[in-house]
Structures are given as C-alpha cells and as structure tokens.
C-alpha cells in the first residue's frame, strides 16, 4: 500500500511536471497603440514595430536596463587601437527561422543590405561603416571610415537585426516585410493589417527554455480606453502606452499591475528660428522672449494634472537613466516675475504667438495649460491643433512659430540631440544653427570614451541652454499595464517588451 502511495506521489509529480510544460503552451496577448509599419528591420520606422521586432529578430547586441551593451548574437566585441575596426565574435548555435544557420557571412549580408538597399532607413545610421568582412564563420569585422561612438547603439537596434539572407529578394524589397525570417525567440506566423500580428515559439532558439509562451499575439488597439477595457475584461494580458488619464483606474484595479518606466525620449517645445518667412516675423525670435516662455511654464503642474504623475519634468536632452544625464542642468522652476522682467528687458509687455501641436487628447491638454500659464507672464498663445501628418509637413515647411513635439528616444546620446540641434540635422525644423555646436556634436560622435564624451555633451548643452533652440517639458514615460498573473516582466527604459523569463502564473 505504501509503495502504491509512493507511486501516487510520483504520478502526481509527473502530472505537475506535465502541467508545468503545459504552461509553455500558452498565449500572450499584447495590446499596442498603433499598427506597426513594414516588418523589415532595414525599412521599419516606428517605435511600435520595434516592440514586435524585439521578440522576432535577434540583434548582434542588446542593451540592458542600465543602457549597457550585452551580448545577443555576438558573444563579445572589441575595438582596435585607433577605434576604426570593430570585431565581433558570434554565437555558433543560432539559427534563422527557416532553419539555415546564422554565421558571419549572414551577418555581413545583412549589414550590406542595410547599407545599400535603396529604401533602407538604416543608411545614415551605418554610414560610418566602410566595409564588412567575415574571415571565418564566427568572426565579423567592421572597418570604419572614422571612429563612431554611436555604432554599438546602432547595432543594438534595427541595424543590428539579422534576417535570413535566403529571404532577400533583389526584385521585391517588400517581400521581407510580408514574411520576415529572423532568428529571435519567436517566429512570424501571420499578420492581418490593423488587426493582429501572430508569432510562434521558435524551438531551435538557443535560449528557448527561457521563453514560456507558445504564441504571441500583438493586437493594435488605438483607442486607449478600449485598450484598457480589453485588459480589464481579460481580452489582453498586457498593454503598452496607457493614457495618463487612466493611471488612477489602472492602479485601482486589483486584477492589474501598473509598470511604468521613464523612457529615453522627451516632449519638447521648439521654436522656428530660421525656417522660412514665419521665422522673420516670429515673436520668439528674441532669445529673451523664448526664455520668458520657458519660465512661465510649470512642468510639475503638467505632470500632476495631465501626466498622472508619470511625466517626469525634463531640462535636458538626456533622461536620468542615461549615463550622459548631467547634474549641471537642473529643471528650471516656474518664475513669472522673472519672465515678465525678461519681456520688459526686451521692450515688450505682451507677446502674441501661435503654438502648434499634434491633435491628441494629452498634448491638447498640455497646450491649454501652457496657454493659461504663459498668459500670466504676458505671453498670449493662440493654439493650433493640427492632424499629425499635416503637422509634420508644416514643421518641415517652417509654417509655425512654436511647436510641441515628441521623440521616442535612443539609448545613445547622439540619437537624442544630433538631428535636432546640428545645422543640417534632419529633424531640425526650426533651422537652429551654431557652428560651435556642430563642431562639438561631430567631435562627440568620434569620441568613444564615456567621460570625455560626456564633457563634450555638457559643453553642447551649455550653449543650447543659452541659445534656447527649444526647451524640454518631460521625459516620455512607457507606462505598461499587465494582468496580475503575468510574472517576471521588467519594463525597459527603451520601451521594448523583453519576454525572457516572463510567464503566466496559474
């Protein structure tokens, strides 16, 4: 009888083990704010597509929550003495979803595609690479035109994602996007535009045991209320970008876990300084008026009223999570008297200006608060809410005086500042230009040493604070919400959803 009992225990244990493996046969449903664009890492452009890529496509290297580089497809890497050669040692046990092996030749083919594909969005990111060599299956050597401090960060994002070279079709660059074949923990199954993207566990993944879902479904649900309702009703297991209005509701629901993290991006207010006719008539042409506007704004009030407490006030381009965040630039407080004094110094008592912004609930509420706060300092803002695509065109054409815009953020400091503040920067729609800033920014690009580089960025920020190209409102948070039974998830400052170790509890 006793023996039988022991057998019973064993059987029970086996059953439990079986149910534990059954835990693998589960699905995780993730609610996204938008439908991702083309699922081709070399052509993709949106934040939301990067979330999908994180599970679909492994990169040469990854970044951890402290923004340090960690191995992924590359086991290790080293720089040459002159910082012009970067050598990677690659994993030998990685495979693509079509079964072919990942090796240095495949990595070379991918980097070359990123460099040469006519509609590659990665071209500027990898512009410093002169040539790529694969001397043996596990060694990848990048020879650079000049030292590039941003390159590792670049290769920890889409430019470092590896597709199966077999899937490249010279005739039709769109074929990759329709059926992406990468080497990540999950492989592509199906996509219905505006509805769902389905991925399935890739059993040959070198680290497959750390990934506990059989299936991932990404569901784009643009309406934030509906997205949250779905989560509460159990139609989703987690969602990204909760609306700040709903923070209290998410915190109050016993079935949910609220997991926000300060991101790497920011929301900024920038001025038209030199872009077209409106720059000449811009009341903010005088730097004192620009400073007065900044001093009239109470960022903490915006955080509390609109941001639900997750809009951490910002005073510089680099968020607190970044090693380049400097204590030298504290967030300026509100000072209406000083703002008025500055206007007086400029020979003005009232200023009339126009604030343009993207037409969504959160930004509209911020614009209205700014209007009320600026009015107390004597700056009368008229508000011009504009549909997003039209806003982009207006910004580029210079049809604005002052504008609010957001940036999703990059782990490398260059990504948060260069295209905004350099004379020919692609996002420098206010056409701010200062030769000294350009010089320092270019110097920082080729300076690999973190301390030296930080000093350069501090010099840049000092000039930018004097010139007032813009001012920052807050750091873009990534507010995730999960159902209580989702365990093991840690939000990353880059806003990606890393599913290693994440599981569903019973």
């Amino acid at each position, binding site marked *: 009888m006793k023996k039988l009992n022991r057998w019973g225990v064993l059987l029970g244990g086996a059953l439990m083990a079986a149910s534990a493996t059954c835990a693998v046969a589960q699905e995780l449903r993730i609610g996204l704010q938008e439908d991702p664009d083309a699922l081709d890492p070399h052509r993709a*452009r949106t934040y939301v597509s990067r979330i999908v890529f994180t599970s679909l496509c492994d990169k040469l290297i990854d970044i951890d929550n402290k923004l340090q580089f960690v191995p992924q497809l590359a086991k290790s890497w080293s720089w040459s003495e002159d910082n012009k050669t970067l050598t990677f040692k690659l994993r030998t046990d990685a495979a693509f979803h079509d079964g072919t092996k990942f090796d240095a030749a495949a990595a070379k083919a991918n980097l070359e595609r990123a460099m040469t594909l006519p*509609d590659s969005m990665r*071209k500027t990111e990898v512009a410093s690479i002169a040539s790529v060599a694969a001397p043996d299956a596990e060694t990848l050597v990048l020879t650079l035109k000049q030292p590039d401090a941003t390159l590792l960060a670049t290769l920890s994002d889409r430019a470092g994602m590896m597709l199966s070279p077999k899937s490249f079709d010279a005739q039709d660059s769109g074929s990759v996007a329709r059926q992406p074949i990468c080497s990540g923990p999950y492989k592509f199954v199906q996509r219905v*535009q505006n*509805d769902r993207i389905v991925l399935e566990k890739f059993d040959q993944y070198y680290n497959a045991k750390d990934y506990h879902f059989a299936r991932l479904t990404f569901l784009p649900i643009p309406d934030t209320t509906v997205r949250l309702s779905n989560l509460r009703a*159990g*139609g989703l297991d987690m969602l990204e970008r909760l609306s700040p209005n709903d923070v209290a509701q998410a915190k109050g629901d016993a079935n949910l876990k609220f997991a926000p993290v300060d991101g790497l991006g920011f929301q900024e207010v920038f001025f038209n300084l030199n872009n077209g006719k409106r720059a000449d008539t811009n009341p903010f042409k005088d730097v004192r008026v620009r400073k007065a506007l900044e001093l009239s704004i109470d960022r903490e009030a915006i955080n509390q009223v609109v941001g639900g407490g997750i809009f951490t006030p910002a005073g510089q381009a680099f968020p607190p999570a970044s090693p380049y965040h400097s204590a030298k630039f504290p967030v300026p407080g509100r000072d209406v008297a000083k703002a008025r004094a500055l206007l007086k110094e400029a020979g003005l008592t009232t200023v009339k200006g126009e604030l343009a912004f993207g037409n969504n609930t959160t930004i509209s509420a911020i614009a209205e608060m700014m209007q009320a706060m600026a009015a107390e300092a004597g700056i009368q803002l008229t508000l011009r809410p504009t549909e997003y*695509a*039209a806003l982009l065109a207006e910004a580029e054409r210079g049809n604005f005086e002052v504008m609010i815009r957001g940036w999703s953020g990059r782990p490398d400091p260059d990504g948060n500042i260069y295209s905004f503040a350099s004379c020919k920067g692609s996002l420098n729609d206010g056409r701010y230009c200062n030769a000294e800033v350009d010089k320092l920014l270019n110097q920082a690009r080729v300076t690999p040493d973190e301390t030296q580089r930080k000093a350069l960025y501090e010099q840049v920020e000092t000039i930018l604070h004097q010139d007032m190209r813009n001012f920052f409102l807050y750091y873009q948070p990534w507010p995730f919400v999960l159902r209580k039974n989702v365990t093991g998830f840690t939000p990353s400052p880059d806003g990606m959803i890393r599913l290693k170790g994440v599981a569903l509890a019973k």
Partner: protein
Amino acid sequence: MLRLILRRVLVAIPTLILVSMIVFMLQKILPGDPVLTLAGEERDPAVLDYLRDKYHLDDPLPVQYGAWVLQVAQGDLGKSLRTDVPVSTLIGQKLPVTLQLSVMAMFFAVLVGIPMGIVAAVRKGTVVEMGANVAALSGMSIPNFWLGIILIMVVSVQWQLLPASGYVPPSQDFWLSIKTLLMPSLVLSTAIAAYLMRHTRSAMLEALGADYVRTARAKGVSPRQVVLRHALRNALMPIVTLVTLLFGELLAGAVLTEQVFTIPGFGKLIVDAVFNRDYAVVQGVVLCVAVGFIVMNLLADILYILVNPRLRHA
C-alpha cells in the same frame, strides 16, 4: 431585365471614373506629405527622395492619375505604402469582416425597426406609438461611439459576458465570431432601426388610409389580415429599396464603430490609410466601396421590380 442591368453597368463606368478622380484630387489637396509621414522619425533626405521617385509623387497629377488608372485596368490596385501588402490582399482581408458586420447589423435593424414601425402605425395616437417614436429618436441621436464604449464598460468589463473588441473569423470559431460582433452590430443597427421604423410607420400610415384598405375592411377582412396582407405588402416596397441602399452604406464601413470595437474592416482601413497618407490603399478601397454601392443600387432597382409586379412589363 437584362437590358436594365446592362444599361446600369454602362452608366456605372463614368460614375466610377468620376469617383476615382475626386478621391485622387481630394488626397492631393490634403495637407501633409506621404513620404514624410512614412518616414516618421527617420528622415534621411536621400531615402525620402528615393521614395518620392519610386511612388512617382513628384510627377504632374494627370500623369500620376493616368499611371494609376492604367495599373487598375490591368487588375492591379497597387501596394500599401506603409506595409508593402498588396491593396487587393487588404480588401480580401477586410471585405468579409465588413460584410459580416453589415449583415448582422441589418438583421437586427430589420428585426426591430420594421415591426416597430408597423405597430406604431397601427396604434397611432397611443402610448405605444409615442414609445416607439421616443425609441427611434434616441436610436438616431445617441452617438455610436458613446454607446459602444458604454456597452464595452458594462457588458465586457463589469459583467464579462462578451469580448470587448476585436474580430474572429466565423471559419475559426462560429459562435465566438457572432459573439464578438454582437455588440458592434447592435450599436450599428440602432440608427438604421430607427430610420427603418420611421419610414415603415409613414408608409404604413399612407397604406392604411388608402382606398383598398377601406374596401378590404368593408368586406369584413379581419384587422390582422388587413394590416399584414393588404397594407404591409404595399408599404414594404419603398422599405425594401431603403434596406438595400442602407446596406450599401454599411459596406462603406462603419468608421466610428469599427474604431471603438477595433474591428479590422473597411472603415478602419480607410481611416488609418488617410491618416498615414497611404494613397494606394485609400484609392483602392474607395474604388471597391464605390463598386459595392453601385451594385447595391442596381440590386435595389431589381428588387423593386420583383416586389412590384406592375413594373415588370413596363
């Protein structure tokens, strides 16, 4: 009958050309640059130029339009600028969704609207008629998106009875598919039901006041028979046409309802495409909707002839 269909098809061609031209022009008038929107945060000037060139966005408008017509004439609707998926594939994915939603919404609307209209006409001047009128007025004036959100909050979040949003094809799970579309189709049907109720009521009132009804009553036909066989049959003729035309409208996509319930149908496809300035998708889908609308119009004419024997030999 065949001649009527043939004539209608011929008339449809210039209509389609006109529709496509208007849509094409409207898109070009819209502020915003598709390539800039496409690029989003990644604005590499060389790539932007390449894309403008690739999609012929710098060509003169008539050239762009001509190229598109030529392409469509060969049966190719082009590819989405945003995702590279062929527009015909997108339409193939979304059309069944919108059809199912439209059929379900129309089913509920007819089920509620027409009987309510009959009752309101027969019980004219009573509390019943007033109730029906109030219901119809609320149906017309309650905004769909509001009703949708409230339903989600109550039925899905509080009671957890139905899925909050999304879509499941019936081939995958028939009952789940019906359950997912239940709320959105009910929401969609409210306005249509109200519309049908008002029209049924007035058509019935007219019919009930007609000479043949008086004659039937005088002959001693039972009130039930009078209403159902004499009055309703005549009153239904304009209603049948109306249902067909409204169905055509439903096919154009229920933009707000689809947005609230995240249903991947035509309405959502078109709205997203407009916001992304995805020209090829907007043009392809509008063309498809226009064809659908023309077909429904034709169907309305044919049905009208079928239910009205007097027209058959005219």
